[in-house]
């Protein structure tokens, strides 16, 4: 631990070429080379090499704080482990059985599966992504290449920030009023996808913007110098380079959509028994169905098994999506690094 602390101090100080032994000999290695030196100087000035009480207190506080930060972090990390472990422990057995994943749901008997719910979740995320990615990327291109810093840009930024703060249950009842009833879509995948597209638009836009910003400005300038118009330059040079970043954002968004339930319950539905292929049909994404199992599921004798299995399956899917997104991001960064 002391060594780790020392390393960080050195790193923060920006000094690489210091021998650890030298500072260790000066006493109190974790103070860092400069600290130790200053202490020695101060000690000399006061006519004594012995560390003062204030210094000892400071050193103790430093050690305690370091231990505290370690403890808090370990507590936080073990919470993560505990959460994932508990969900999998309760439901992994069910979630991995093909009869459950590919089985037909039961409304009043035991032994039901969740295949229509799995399909609903995937169908809903694909439909939502098809709506939200073009919109989000378009908005991001506008904001990063064309908007400048005017009033319009500020308005769009305000809209995005505010929309990103709206609670998902508010989106849910908004979608119910507007898409389900007012537009007459009824409970359907499309009504849910429209609701979720609005919910996810700010984050998709933000991540697309970040990806576009990460493209070196010289690319765009080079393209403009060859006589391309701005849009041609963006389309042929900037966007292709930004695509992997945008794709990463889209995969993470898919994870968020699959896990969303409050906005889905009143727009898509809670429970179906047949696989919903049409966007105009009601469906039951897994997350919403867990809520249904919690509230009305008890008519099925094994509702607890179904809900636990569904929770574990949902967690596995979301974790896999996140892993895929992160691996893509890493691979892309590496490739880009070589290219530059």
């Amino acid at each position, binding site marked *: 631990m002391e060594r780790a602390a020392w390393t960080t*101090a050195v790193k*923060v*100080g920006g000094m690489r070429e210091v021998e650890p032994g030298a500072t260790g000999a000066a006493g109190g290695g974790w103070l*860092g080379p*400069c*600290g130790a030196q*200053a202490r020695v100087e101060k000690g000399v000035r006061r006519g004594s090499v012995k560390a003062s009480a204030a210094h000892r207190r*400071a050193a103790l*506080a*430093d050690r305690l*704080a*370091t231990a*505290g*930060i*370690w403890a*808090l*972090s370990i507590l*936080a*990390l073990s919470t*993560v482990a505990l*959460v*994932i472990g508990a969900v999998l422990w309760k439901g992994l057995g069910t979630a991995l059985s093909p009869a459950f994943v590919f089985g037909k749901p039961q409304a009043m008997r035991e032994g039901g599966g969740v295949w229509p719910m799995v399909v609903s979740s995937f169908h809903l995320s694909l439909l939502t992504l098809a709506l939200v990615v*073009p919109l989000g990327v*378009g*908005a991001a291109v*506008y904001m990063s290449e*064309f908007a400048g810093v005017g009033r*319009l840009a500020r*308005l*769009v930024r305000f809209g995005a*920030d505010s*929309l*990103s703060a709206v*609670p998902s*249950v*508010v989106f849910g009842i*908004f979608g119910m009023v507007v898409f389900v009833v007012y537009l007459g879509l009824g409970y359907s995948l499309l009504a849910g996808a429209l609701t979720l597209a609005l919910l996810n*638009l700010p*984050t998709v*836009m*933000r991540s697309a913007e*970040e990806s576009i910003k990460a493209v070196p400005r010289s690319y765009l300038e080079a393209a403009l110098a060859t006589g391309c*118009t701005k*849009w041609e330059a963006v389309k042929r040079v900037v966007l292709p380079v930004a695509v992997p*970043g945008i794709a990463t*954002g889209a995969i*993470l968004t898919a994870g968020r959509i*699959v*896990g*969303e339930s*409050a906005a889905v*319950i009143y727009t898509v539905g809670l429970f179906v028994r047949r696989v919903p292929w049409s966007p105009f049909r009601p469906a039951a994404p897994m997350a919403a169905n867990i*809520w249904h199992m*919690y509230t009305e599921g008890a008519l099925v004798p094994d509702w607890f098994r179904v*809900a*636990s299995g569904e*929770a574990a399956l*949902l*967690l596995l899917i979301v974790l896999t999506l996140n892993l895929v997104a992160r691996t893509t*991001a890493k691979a892309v960064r590496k490739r880009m690094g070589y290219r530059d």
Partner: protein
Amino acid sequence: MYVIRREWLVKRVLLVTAMVVVLGLALVVYFMVKESIPAFKQAGPANLFSSEWAPGEGRYGMLIFLVGTLATTAGGLILGTPLALGLALFLTQVAPRRSRALFSRGVETLAGIPSIVLGWLGFTILVPWIRELSGSSGSGILAASIVLAVMVIPTITAISRDALEAVPSTYAQASLAMGATRWQTIRRVQLPAAKHGILAAIILGMGRAIGETMAVAMVIGPASVFPTSLTSPTHTLTTKILMEMGESTGVQRSSLFAMGLVLLMLAMALIALMRRVSGGRSATPEVVE
């Protein structure tokens, strides 16, 4: 000529896509207001903001749920902020390189866990556990706060971490060079320098806690009464809307929309506050790390 016109057209189309967020926000606000008008007209603001919820007797007070929302949010922040800040300090100042990757991966994973899964876990493990320890029904503010703490940790950690990393390293160098210990440097130099960013992180975490529905719904009780203890059942604005929207009509339904409007106002006020604190930086959370 063709090129210029296309350029103009493309710019307009892109502008339209950018305006969708503004239009979307306007629509959400418009419909929340429109649907809550009957409640304001027929029940009146005094009734709506009273502390009695009894639709059968024409009482539509939302104070109980507002208190529930504020109490669970405060609880979640009190439990979650120290952990998140500790984690942010750990990742930026203390961690050896190898553990940094592990911890950073861990907290990102936590951000991805669906709230319904956390709620299910709260219902199946946390609530029975509190029930054993306290002899109460187990659900209530305490259980909701614990679940919310878990949910705000990734948000607060990520943004405080950015804020701490944005502090110029010369500050720390200067402090260390003067003989300060690392903790003195963190406490006197880095934390004050990152103050605004950390505050923004907590505000964003607060927004997340206020709006959280599913995870709270499974552990809050529920009961339409003020909580008498940390383990007595109550309700929040979000859980009340979720559970009663399907079964209510008329003024009762409209008053649920009024609760949605209050949530919307709270969320937007927090965003305004956050933009102010962070000096106009975008408040939209990023999904890409």
